């Protein structure tokens, strides 16, 4: 720092190359630093000039705490988009400060997880930030129609999320409909107080609506005519609208011409009859989601065959008949995306016919289609060679040989979910040929070992996410190969892989982008390994060390020192004590802690840690602490924005991994 200061003061004499560049050019350079927020932070810390340039360049801000809001806001005057979802406490005064600092500069505000504000703050925001275009108020369960009336003053609002605002009613929505005429997107998901009148009025007044989410609203067919008349409507979500039924859908006759995506999931009262009338006029429908709806029969498939532009259909959780699948196969369109996750009745015959016709499939989800065998896999791999995503968790009848086919034919795979399958090292070796693979899920694959994983590590260099949950055959060698071969790894789960030791962690510490590490139930891992991770993986934000009995305070102290981006930690059953917990308080980002069955934890230590961690939003605690600690303490913490979850589970000893699988099967 000293040298930097000197550089600045001697600027007139000491020529620096950055002085040649105009601010605009530096801005453009900074534009390329978008990938990792920490890079910008480093940049701004170089010198005062960089600091000012960076603060003037920044357009989006996602503060962690609201305490220093005034300072942060004055540092970044050009911010247009403000994400407050990480701030545990946003009060009316915070919003007031924001609205007065940014005024008409501000375009987007996210309050989706904020609490403690009321219509007064919203009103300030709407009044002062006249150019506000996006506002996310999801989960503001307490706000009422008065807040909606305040939002209605934001005349330029285009996107508004109100998911789970349970206390608002038609009246409030009516205010918005009249006030925010430029709305393009509105989400009213779970706004249980809003009915036909509110939804209908939005459609009547806001003619620019592109995206309309009405999930789980108590609406009926009455509001549909104005909605379907919307000229530009592209995305309509009617998930779980039980009030909509066939009878009146058939009366509607006309569909919406501009509609591109329709979600009718969980609409139990809508069958193919109503669906066909709803989609009849929709000439450019591309995506259709009918999850958990009426059975996929021949009639349903036939009723949809006229959708000439359909690219994606999701039928998750539906009862599926063979003839229905075959009929989908006979559609003249070529689907890009098909989801049959958890569908009952998916057979080899139906699925094989379907996939042989839709050769262009990019995404296929056959999770939990328990009847399919190697026949289906053979057909899928044979015809759909351009598959980019294949999810086939728990296809238990698929034999290990079938997985070889995947690696042989579907070389473009980027996402592969083989959780709970019979795949073995041979299959894994084959799959390693898919060099574009970025997400690989191999949880509960008991047949794989480090041998197969080594192949993946060698070839799949683009791997970002790897899930090895309870794949007990894995040991350090496999992890080492992965860590060495996949430098871009961000997420790894080796939970309950009992053979994993500190060596694995030390090798993973070489993956600088690692942000999520789950080593739950790895008893061989010690504080040493965790220290290596803390030092190496600066971006670590989620850490689960539950049941790592050998991790103690010695691991916590370096973690607290180095892992300054840690947000979420699970310490249950570890050997951490008061000291370790208290040291975590130095991580200012820390928001969520799960602290169950810590033997070395005393009530006073817990209190100290809780008070010291100022940014906590969620803490899971043993229920016994509730009575041990004074109630005002919890009230104080809750007022800071922390939510407590009390657990009263008895101490669980770890069972044998193989035994666990057997137990699981018994339950099934």
């Amino acid at each position, binding site marked *: 720092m000293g040298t930097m200061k000197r550089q600045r003061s001697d600027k007139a004499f000491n020529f620096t190359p950055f002085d040649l560049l105009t601010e605009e050019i530096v801005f453009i350079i900074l534009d390329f630093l978008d990938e990792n927020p920490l890079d910008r932070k480093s940049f701004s810390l170089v010198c005062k000039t960089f600091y000012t340039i960076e603060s003037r360049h920044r357009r989006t801000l996602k503060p962690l705490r609201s305490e220093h809001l005034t300072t942060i806001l004055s540092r970044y005057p050009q911010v247009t988009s403000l994400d407050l979802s990480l701030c545990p406490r946003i009060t009316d005064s915070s919003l007031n400060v924001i609205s007065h600092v940014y005024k008409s500069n501000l375009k987007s505000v996210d309050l989706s997880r904020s609490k403690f504000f009321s219509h*007064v703050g919203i009103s300030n925001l709407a*009044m002062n930030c006249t150019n506000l275009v996006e506002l996310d108020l999801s989960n503001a369960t307490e706000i009422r129609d008065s807040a909606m009336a305040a939002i209605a003053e934001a005349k330029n609002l285009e996107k508004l999320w109100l998911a789970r605002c349970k206390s608002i009613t038609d009246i409030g929505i009516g205010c918005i409909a009249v006030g925010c005429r430029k709305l393009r997107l509105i989400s009213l998901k779970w706004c249980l107080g809003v009915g036909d*009148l509110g939804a209908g009025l939005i459609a009547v007044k806001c003619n620019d609506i592109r995206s309309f989410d009405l999930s789980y609203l108590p609406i009926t067919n009455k509001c549909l005519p104005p909605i379907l008349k919307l000229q530009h409507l592209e995305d309509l979500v009617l998930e779980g609208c039980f009030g909509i039924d066939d009878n009146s859908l058939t009366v509607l006759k006309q569909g919406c011409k501009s509609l591109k995506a329709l979600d009718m999931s969980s609409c139990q009262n809508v069958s193919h009859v109503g669906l066909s009338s709803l989609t009849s006029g929709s000439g450019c429908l591309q995506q259709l989601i009918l999850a958990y709806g009426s059975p996929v029969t021949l009639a349903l498939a036939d009723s949809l065959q006229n959708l000439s532009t359909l690219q994606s259909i999701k039928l998750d959780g539906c009862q599926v008949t063979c003839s229905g699948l075959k009929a989908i196969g006979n559609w003249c369109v070529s689907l890009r995306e098909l989801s049959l996750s958890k569908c009952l009745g998916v057979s080899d015959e139906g699925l094989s016919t379907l996939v042989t016709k839709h050769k262009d499939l990019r995404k296929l989800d056959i999770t939990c289609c328990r009847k399919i065998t190697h026949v289906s896999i053979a057909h899928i791999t044979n015809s759909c060679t351009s598959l980019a995503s294949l999810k086939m968790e728990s296809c238990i009848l698929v034999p290990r040989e079938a997985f070889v086919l995947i690696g042989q034919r579907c070389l473009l795979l980027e996402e592969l979910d083989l959780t709970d399958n019979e795949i073995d090292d041979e299959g894994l070796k084959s799959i390693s040929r898919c060099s574009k693979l970025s997400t690989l899920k191999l949880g509960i694959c008991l047949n794989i070992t480090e041998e197969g994983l080594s192949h993946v590590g060698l070839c799949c260099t683009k791997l970002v996410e790897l899930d090895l949950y309870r794949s007990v055959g894995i040991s350090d060698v496999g992890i080492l190969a992965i860590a060495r071969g996949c430098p871009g790894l961000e997420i790894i789960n080796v939970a309950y892989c009992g053979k994993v030791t500190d060596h694995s962690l030390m090798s993973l510490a070489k993956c600088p982008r690692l942000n999520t590490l789950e080593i739950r139930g790895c008893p061989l891992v010690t504080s040493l390994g965790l220290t290596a991770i803390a030092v190496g993986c600066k971006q670590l934000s989620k850490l689960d060390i539950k049941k790592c009995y050998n991790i103690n305070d010695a691991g916590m102290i370096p973690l607290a020192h180095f892992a300054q981006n840690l947000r979420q930690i699970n310490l249950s059953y570890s050997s951490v004590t008061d000291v370790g917990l208290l040291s975590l308080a130095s991580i200012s980002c820390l928001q969520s802690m799960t602290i169950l069955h810590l033997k070395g934890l005393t009530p006073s230590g817990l209190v100290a840690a809780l008070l010291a961690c100022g940014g906590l939003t969620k803490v899971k605690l043993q229920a016994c602490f509730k009575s041990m600690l004074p109630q005002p303490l919890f009230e104080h913490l809750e007022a800071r924005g922390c939510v407590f979850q009390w657990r009263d589970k008895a101490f669980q000893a770890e069972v044998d991994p193989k035994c666990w699988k057997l137990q699981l099967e018994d339950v099934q």
Partner: protein
Amino acid sequence: MDLNDKIVADTWAKSFSSAKDLPKQLTSDHRSFTSFNNQQQQKKWEVSSILDYNNRIQPPFPEFNHTPEAPRNHNSQIKGPDREDMQSNEKPDNKRFQEWDPRVMLNNLSFLEDKIHQLQDLVHLIVGRRGRVLGQSDELATQQQQLITADLTSIIVQLISTAGSLLPSIKHTLSTANPAIGQLGQLGSMLFPPTNSLNGVVLQQNSGGSKVSGQSNQIDLTVNCGTEQNYAAEEHDPKDDDDDADEGENLAPGSYEILQLEKEEILAPHTHFCMICGKGFKRDANLRMHMRGHGDEYKTPAALAKPNKDSSEPMLLKRYSCPYAGCKRNKDHKKFQPLKTILCVKNHYKRTHCDKSYTCSRCNTKKFSVIADLKTHEKHCGRDKWLCSCGTTFSRKDKLFGHIALFQGHTPALPLDETKPSSLPSDRTENNESKLGNIGFNFSASGSGGNAIQNMVDVKGAVDDPAAYFSPLNFDPCNIPGFHEFPRPTFEESDGFFSFPIPGACNYNQKTGGDSGSNDLE
């Protein structure tokens, strides 16, 4: 009426086995005396005309000499002997009239019969009580007297309301709710003294009306109430209730006959007039009933039957035109739409071209020109909880939303309890400016304070000069020109109710004051 009839019949069936022995004609007449007496007490009638009538009436109905006693008795303690006297008078009459009994009238008359017995029984009751309470204090006696009189009153009211069709003259006077109409009626009866009109006798009774104590007021009230009900019931004949109901009727231009009544005719209370005496009636049936008094030739079943039934030829359809030039219902209008019935004409004319003289007593804002409309409104008044920013209230939410969907710039208004924090001063009468200041301050100050409640408490003290409490970022809303462009006048009218839009207006101006460039008010 049928229902009433039945109830009465049931109640009195035992005690009046001889019900049919009573004189029909007399019964009705006598009844009307009582009712008239009650009803007219307040009115000041010219004594001369009263006397006039009295003289004329006496010859044809000598028994009326006695009957005036009855109402007076009622006013000042009805006496048993008098009553008995009356009965003895009635009995022979009854026999005299029994032979003559047209079927058409049977129902109505027997009903009235029952009614008179009802009265009779009550008088008996009074007599009995008087005997018993003799030794008691005067106060108790008057109490009982009041009680009985009240009973009597209610019966009279019932009688009046039910006998409306039988006794047109009653209705004629009852409709004096509108003074002009009442005078008209009076005029008519003066010009053409009816032979069977009871007005005269009643009026005579009225001359002694000053004796009547507070009870008479009470009676008056109830009587009025009864008449209004009666009136409303008539106006609300479902067939011709709404004059706009025939909107869709498509009659070929020549297929009907267009009648146009003059304004005076429309506003006149009656449409059917007696050819002989000129007395007016609302219904033809009442006129036919009235005609019997003019001679035996009008008492034949043929004369009493509905005239339409007699005419075998199909009548040309009659449609009506509104006399108001330029009205769509006027026959000269390009898109003329005829009115179906005279009642339609009346309601239409009153609703569209007359002053709305009836004001709702509850809200004091809604006005009507047709009294039935007022009645309908009063049933729902105060229950309209759905509110638009323009001040219109709706009883149903979907109606409000229909209204908002239709009009640009109208917004649903929030109920008071939601917009106004409870700690704010709830004085509705304070002027709007200071209220604006309050709320504006409240918003702006919350930034510095953070504790909303405390701010509100502060505000209480700030009512006098709210502008002084604005932070530098806020501006006095009153001084900003754009402020008055906000659709505020409507809010001013209905004080207090619209606290929701006002903060919006206020804050908006803070903003416009901030950067004068953005002037996008709507």
